Every structure is written in C-alpha cells, then in structure tokens.
C-alpha cells in the first residue's frame, strides 16, 4: 500500500508544483498581466515588490506549500532512481531514513524562513 500512497502524492505534488511554479513564472515574467503582485516597482524582484508580496498571507502559504511539494516530489523521485540501481534492503531503509530526516529538516527550515520573512516584512 505504501508505494501506491507515495506515488499518488508524487503525482499530486507535481500538480501543485505545476500550478504554483506557473504562478511564480507568471509573476516574474508576465508582470503586464498581473501587476497586482508587483505594486511598488515595475521590476518583479525589486526589494519593494518582494517585501510587498511577503506581507501577503497568500504568498507565505504558497511558498510553504511549494516548498513541501517540491521537496517531496524531488526526494521521492531521487529515491526511485537510487532504488532502481538494485541496492539491498538495508541500504533502502537507510536511504529512506536519510531522505525523510533531510526532507523534514529542509521543510522546517524553509517554512520558518518563509514565515519569518512575512513577519519581518510586516514590520517594515
């Protein structure tokens, strides 16, 4: 059952990445169409725009969701590639542990960074 569950989440994470990365690309490269996300400066990565987006709760949530989806999607894909090399049961278990611990740590750090950026931006 585990592989069915993991694969389904892999697909769902891919869909989430598709949507949120699409939004990111739109904001960065199609500013003419979505000027509301870049209210302070014509350039999408100008500090004023970055801070303005960080103040929006929607972006804090989307950063955290995108981080989680990308980490799961990427690490599960990497796990599949390594497992295909025909490694032994013990190595598989060890790799699972490393990837889960690494993934959770990176997610916690990234989520904290996104949350802290939002909090900081709101104080400016």
């Amino acid at each position, binding site marked *: 059952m585990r592989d*069915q569950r993991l694969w389904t989440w892999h697909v769902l994470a891919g869909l989430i990445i598709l949507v949120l990365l699409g939004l990111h690309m739109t904001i960065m490269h199609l500013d003419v169409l979505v000027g509301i996300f870049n209210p302070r400066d014509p350039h999408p990565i100008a500090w004023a725009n970055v801070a303005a987006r960080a103040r929006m709760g929607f972006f804090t949530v989307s950063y955290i969701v995108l981080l989680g989806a990308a980490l799961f999607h990427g690490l599960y894909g990497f796990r599949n590639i390594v497992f*295909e090399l025909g490694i032994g049961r013990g190595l598989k278990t060890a790799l699972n542990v490393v990837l889960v611990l690494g993934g959770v740590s990176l997610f916690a750090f990234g989520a904290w960074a996104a949350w802290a950026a939002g909090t900081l931006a709101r104080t400016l």
Partner: protein
Amino acid sequence: MTTPANVTFRIRRYEPASQRPPAWEDVTIPYADGMTVLDGLRTIKETRLPSLAWRSSCRMGVCGSCGMFINGHPRLACNTQVTELGTSLVTVAPLPNFEIIRDLVPDLRSMFDAHAALMPHIIRDDVQEMYEPTGEYFQTPHELEQILQFSYCIKCGCCMAACPTVATDPAYSGPMPLAQSHRYNADSRDGGFAARTQVLATEKGPWKCHYAGECSQACPKGVDPARAIQLMKRQLVFDYLGLYKQPCPAKVVAKPAGITRRADVPEAPAATI
C-alpha cells in the same frame, strides 16, 4: 537487402556444467529461401552443433517459446526472417534480464512467479457459476475492446528482456505480469481488483515504470504493455483517492433459447478437462 548466399550465425554458447563463461561461436550455413532464424538454428543443430540448446515449439509465433536476443533486439526466432535483419551476420543470444539455463535457453521462472502473484485469471464471488455455468457472462463489444489487445500476449518474455527497469530492479514485476494484471482488472467479467491491488500497491506494482516504451516496441504480437501499465497507474491513483469504483462484475445471462443449430455447423466436442 539482396538474398545472401551464406549466412553466419554468431551464437552465444553457455554450458553451466563446463564451468566456462559464455562465449560466442560462429557458424556459416547456406541461405535457403524463407529461412527464419529458427530454421537456421535447426540447420546448425542438425549439421554442425548437435549440442546447441534452445526452446521452441509451434514455429508460427503463437506459443512464445523461442524468444531470443537477435541482432540486439528481443524477437521470436520463428517469426524473424533472416533477410529482414538486413545483414548476413545473425547474432543470437538468450533473452537478457533472465538467468541462463543453457545456450539460448533463459530461465523464465522469475517472470512466471511474478505473473502468478498478480492473479492473472477471472476472480468472482460466484464460484459455483464459474465451474458449472448456467449461462454466459455478458460482455459488450466495447467492454471486450478494453482488454482484447492485452489478451494477445503469448508470455514470450521479449518485453521483460527489453525493459530497462527489469534489468536493474529485481522487485519490479515487469511489463508482462503487469499488463496481464491490467488485462483482468479491466475485464468487465472480473471482480478481483481489490485482491490484485494488495500486490500492485507494493514495490512489485507499476510504480517504477518510467515509460521507456521498449516493451511495446519489442512485443512480437503488437501488445502495448506500456499503455496497460500507465492505465493501471491511473486506476490505482484514483483508487487511493477514493475516486475509483469497480463496476459490478458482469451478470450471468441465460443461454439464448429457441435457436436451432445450422446443419452445416458441427456441434462442439465434449469438454476434455
């Protein structure tokens, strides 16, 4: 290609009892019109290498016994004309991704074990009806269409030999068992989806297939196992999300009454098993 006067067979020889590693052996024989690779091997065995071993039976691409690695591709030896290879040098080796029993004989047990584990047969609750039928399971032409091409599989192992995932991952069931599992999951007469999912949801399932598509290229019967595996993945994802509901297995319909046999159509022989 013009018809060659002679054909050289480069054959992979292996005799486990000899303790020697596998080695190539070249044999040149005269070409005969319509010669298949299997015909060539038979000529070689009769005239040059009496100890050469391979597996074959029907000689017409039906039994699936003579799968071999011919000029770098898994093919049926009986179904491969020498001239279609476009060269007078024919290299013949046992199917890759299997242990070798001897010479050109692969050990297909790993494939058949995976096949059996996925319950490739109709599973229903009405066991009594299956063994002592009172009618027929109703199936529309459209429902038949969903499984027909997959039922052409002859279990020759060519798809397994072509699969890059089977080559590296011993836990993966492989294209033939998975395609046959889908063939029964998609059969409107079957009710065994939940039972098969117990196996398919594990690492033996379709998850490691990354759609190289080599299995479908290699299949000598035109079956598309890669498609079956992708359809199966979709079915299993929907199942996990609670969006898949297996339809009730086909109902039994009574045999048509009031029909008389045409005089020129003989009656079916009595069952032998």
